[in-house]
């Protein structure tokens, strides 16, 4: 897992550079939270990708926009 403060630093860099924070949550998916493992970072992402375990192995992919 990334060290403490890593996600916050990515958020800060994205904001300072005017970039979107797009997080790949495909590997962890729902392992850390039913809402998606990206929700336990404590940081808001702009977009999130999910798939694989989402359909228990059937091919599917999701690109999700996270709104404030």
């Amino acid at each position, binding site marked *: *897992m990334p060290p403490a403060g890593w996600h916050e630093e990515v958020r800060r860099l994205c904001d300072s550079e005017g970039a979107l924070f797009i997080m790949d949550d495909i*590997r*962890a998916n729902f*392992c850390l939270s039913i809402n998606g493992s990206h929700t336990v970072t404590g940081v808001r992402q702009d977009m999130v990708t999910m798939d694989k*375990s*989402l359909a*228990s192995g*059937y091919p*599917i992919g999701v690109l999700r926009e996270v709104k404030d």
Partner: protein
Amino acid sequence: MKKTASGFFITGTFWTSTVPYIAALASLNEMEKPDVVSHINAMGLRLEDGLKSAAADAGYNVSLTGPDAIPFMMFSDDPDLWQNQEFSARMAAKGVYMHPHHNWFLSLAHKEADIDETVEKVRDAFGEVRETLDK
């Protein structure tokens, strides 16, 4: 009817992908049941504890990384993951798939008995890897 059929066009973006959608809905319904996430993490923790115990008994120094639900084990002094590959091959021969260079994924289907059986096989595999290294 052939004339009528030739006069119109019909299409659909997801016609060939309805099964994954149903599978996703079914998966989400299962995931929303109480204690699913905690169960998956508990099984991962049980596996990690078993691996640490088996490694210590076999004289191996291993590191476990990642969240409990998706752990990964590495042998010390094994930068090219050769021992991991040997270990994974031994486990596969015993019917347990443990990827040699990627996180493992626990699931709701894993029960305590599955983990305990896996750890027992890990103990045997550690011994077999040791024999291979000693040759």
